């Protein structure tokens, strides 16, 4: 902080620069209010950082690629250095993508860094979302920031898909073909949207240039705006912290921005970038030269989308057949509409979850202390159900590879997946919720009676006991500091009516909180300690407290 000077000092160039900046942009005030801002420390808080840093890498590597890539579908005969494709007719887009890979030093590296960091961006954003979900970080006052983050996740998928199609190779062309098939299935406006998107019939000569505009301008601009809002709200709310001694809803415990966080977060950016570079230097991703230019007729077996589109492709595969409806001279292709509507409903539920939970608990307080997942068993169960649903859809995008690899019947794999898609989430919910409740019971047990040490002691009067080691007060507090809710009952409102809403809310509150394990209270603890009849415990207790 010695660099901040508000008046001329004898200090060197640094002081002079600081003075210059302060007199023009008021950097002194900025540093005063942000320089020692406290950030809590936990590995799970780095997932969002990974997403942010991969976006920066995407901007850097993407800018490099725009210098060489040409978004044109004009057909040329390839005359580059990749011999197997010499003389092949292909679009300029594909040819320039090959040139980036095979003619330009570092071109392959940047292409791979761009692709790997895109995969990482969506993965990190998704894991960050799961962290926020399972720890309840979306509760008041952060519900809106959840929506912003949700938009970022969806935009991440959009950025990925628009970029995936740009090389105009066989694989990405087939991806576009599938999108076209889905769009055409939309009632009323489907064919017009398809015609508008492709500038006429599929594949046309426009789509690559249009996706390019979206990919390098509109989508990244939106992502930047949403990132700015996302981070602005983090500053407003201050970061959450995990429950523990000294951590409350009214404070924030952690390390100051300067110097610790600047070093850690700044360093972490370089680490993420370095790891992406290491992967890009050593592992091939999307070898477009193997696929050849787009042609509507050939296709390779075992086609796979990038991982984040997998769940949508899986949804297409799992849709039951023979359900197309022809009604009043129009076609409703259910094989497309069920997956389309189903995935939109799933996304809507994800976006709406914070508001649903807030409505059920009616808890209007601000929450800044995170839940351990076990301390919100129903939420954790719901999250596990959602993860299972997504996971089955995702795995279903590889039904053919699973069948080939494990030498199983494709038909059986698909049928099993269809059953899993329905049964899996319920099973995951029940198993997870029960596991959480058991873990909470175990926590109670440990708080009240200490940890089992496995040491059996024979007392002078012949009794055998196992020595339990009590927790120190800090460890104990971690296990008892959580919020506890209980279900409500249906009550008439002021007009004496019982509304449907209040019935639903009561039912949901039962679902959430009927089975609950309350945190240990002081009286329960005192009671349990007064039962302690073993001198061994008493002594080890003493030791612990004096430590």
């Amino acid at each position, binding site marked *: 902080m010695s660099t901040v000077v508000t008046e001329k000092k004898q200090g060197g160039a640094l002081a002079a620069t600081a003075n210059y900046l302060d007199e023009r942009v008021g950097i002194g005030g900025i540093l005063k209010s942000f320089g020692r801002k406290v950030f809590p420390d936990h590995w799970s808080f780095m997932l969002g950082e990974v997403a942010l840093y991969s976006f920066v890498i995407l901007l850097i590597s993407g800018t490099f690629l725009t210098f060489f890539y040409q978004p044109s579908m004009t057909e040329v005969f390839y005359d580059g250095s990749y011999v197997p494709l010499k003389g092949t007719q292909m679009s300029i887009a594909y040819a320039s993508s090959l040139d980036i890979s095979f003619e330009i030093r570092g071109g392959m590296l940047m292409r791979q860094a761009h692709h790997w960091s895109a995969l990482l961006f969506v993965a990190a954003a998704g894991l960050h979302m799961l962290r926020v979900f399972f720890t309840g970080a979306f509760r008041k006052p952060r519900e809106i920031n959840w929506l912003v983050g949700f938009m970022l996740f969806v935009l991440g998928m959009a950025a990925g898909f628009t970029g995936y199609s740009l090389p105009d190779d066989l694989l990405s062309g087939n991806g576009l073909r599938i999108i076209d098939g*889905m769009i055409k299935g939309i009632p009323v406006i489907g064919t017009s949207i398809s015609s*508008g998107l492709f500038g006429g019939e599929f594949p046309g000569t426009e789509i690559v240039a249009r996706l390019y505009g979206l990919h390098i301008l509109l989508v990244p601009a939106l992502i930047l705006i949403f990132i700015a809002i996302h981070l602005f709200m983090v500053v407003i709310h201050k970061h959450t912290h995990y429950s523990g001694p*000294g951590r*409350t809803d009214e404070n924030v415990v952690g390390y100051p921005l300067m110097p610790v966080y600047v070093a850690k977060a700044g360093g972490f950016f370089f*680490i993420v970038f370095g790891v992406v570079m290491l992967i*890009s230097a050593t592992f091939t991703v999307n070898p477009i030269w193997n696929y050849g230019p787009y*042609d509507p007729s050939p296709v390779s077996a075992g086609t796979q989308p990038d991982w984040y589109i997998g769940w949508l492709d899986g949804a297409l595969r799992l849709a*039951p*057949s023979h359900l197309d409806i022809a009604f009043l001279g129009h076609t409703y292709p259910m094989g497309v509409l069920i997956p389309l509507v189903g995935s939109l409903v799933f996304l809507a539920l994800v976006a709406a979850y914070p508001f649903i939970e807030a409505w059920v608990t*009616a808890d209007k307080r601000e929450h800044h202390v995170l839940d351990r997942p076990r301390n919100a068993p129903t939420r954790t169960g719901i999250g596990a159900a959602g993860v299972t649903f997504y996971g089955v859809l995702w795995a279903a995008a590889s039904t053919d590879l699973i069948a080939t690899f494990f030498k199983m019947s494709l038909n059986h794999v698909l049928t099993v997946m269809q059953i899993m898609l329905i049964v899996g989430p319920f099973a995951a919910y029940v198993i997870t919720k029960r596991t959480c409740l058991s873990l909470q019971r175990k926590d109670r047990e440990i708080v009240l009676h200490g940890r089992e040490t496995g040491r059996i002691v024979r007392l002078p009067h012949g009794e055998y006991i196992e020595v339990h080691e009590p927790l120190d007060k800090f460890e104990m507090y971690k296990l008892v500091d959580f919020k506890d809710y209980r279900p409500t009952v249906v009550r008439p409102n002021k007009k004496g009516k019982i509304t449907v809403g209040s019935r639903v809310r009561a039912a949901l509150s039962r679902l959430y909180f009927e089975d609950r394990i309350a945190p240990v209270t002081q009286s329960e603890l005192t009671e349990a300690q007064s039962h302690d009849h073993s001198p061994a415990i008493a002594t080890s207790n003493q030791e612990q407290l004096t430590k």
Partner: protein
Amino acid sequence: MAGKDLEKGSEAEGFEHDFESGLAVLPPDKIKDPGLEPHRVRMTDKSPAKAKNAERQVAALFLASVVGSFFALWAYVAFPITEDLATVRANNLFLGLGMTLSLLGIGIGAVHWAKTLMPDFEVTEARHQTRGSEEVRAKAVEIVKLADSESGFSRRKLIRRTLYGALALFPLPALIVFGDLGPQVGNSLRQTMWKAGTRLTKDPTGVPIKASDVTLGSVFHVIPEGLSEMHEHKLEEKAKAAVLLVRLNQESLNEAEDRKGWSYDGIVAYSKICTHVGCPVALYEQHTHHLLCPCHQSTFDVTEHCRVVFGPASRPLPQLPIAVDAEGYLIAQSDFLEPVGPSFWER
């Protein structure tokens, strides 16, 4: 026990405003917060030798980054890309590894510095409720009211309503300019290049196919005559006109009465474009006579007019009626009699 719906939150004592706690149970005797855990002293705090050591490690990591940067610069020059494809690999690998070292050296060095040498005392900072204080809120309301009275927004209904109207309509011209993104759909989705007399030719060479060339069990990827020489709209036409030609035993074909004349001596032609979402149905399994779409595994039975036997597709693949011309080449009798490819609203 506490926990009535409208109970005031006791946990928010430190805040100015009390919010309802809803269904939360507020235990009267919560175990007391013992406050922050005592700080654990690191080796580098205790021993100047260890601190010196850590300092050297950090500096070594930063130096490694310098080495990495120079290595990357050298690799860019030392591994040029030539006609030999192996040079791409070397360029990619060594340039990438140099950059990796250059980046990781800085990153790991900075984090190591922070973890070993910068103070690791946890600091507590007070939070403030996001909700503004009563005073601030009153002031905000006052400002809004003042702005309202100064502009007359509430008072002057005429202005307000015409503004709403104007705001509702102004985006429409902005939308209409996207009208020329694509042409009207028209009939294009129902028509392909196939006409009566069009020869069936091999994909992609365009060589016509003689009926006698099609041996039992063989499969041909087919495009209409003339497509391979097209310059404009070649891919659009191909995306609709691609056909799969198979010859089966006449006995194993279960042909419907009205389609008996669509095949020639056990040779049948079906659209290659999947009726699910349009992937090419390119995989033919000879002993089951099944066509499989590799994208979503819709499976069609060639012996049963390409009925769907598995997967998400709903409609059979459209059949192209074929015949043989005077020279023995396979020709189309007409275009497909139904639209090919994925289902759409107007079909």
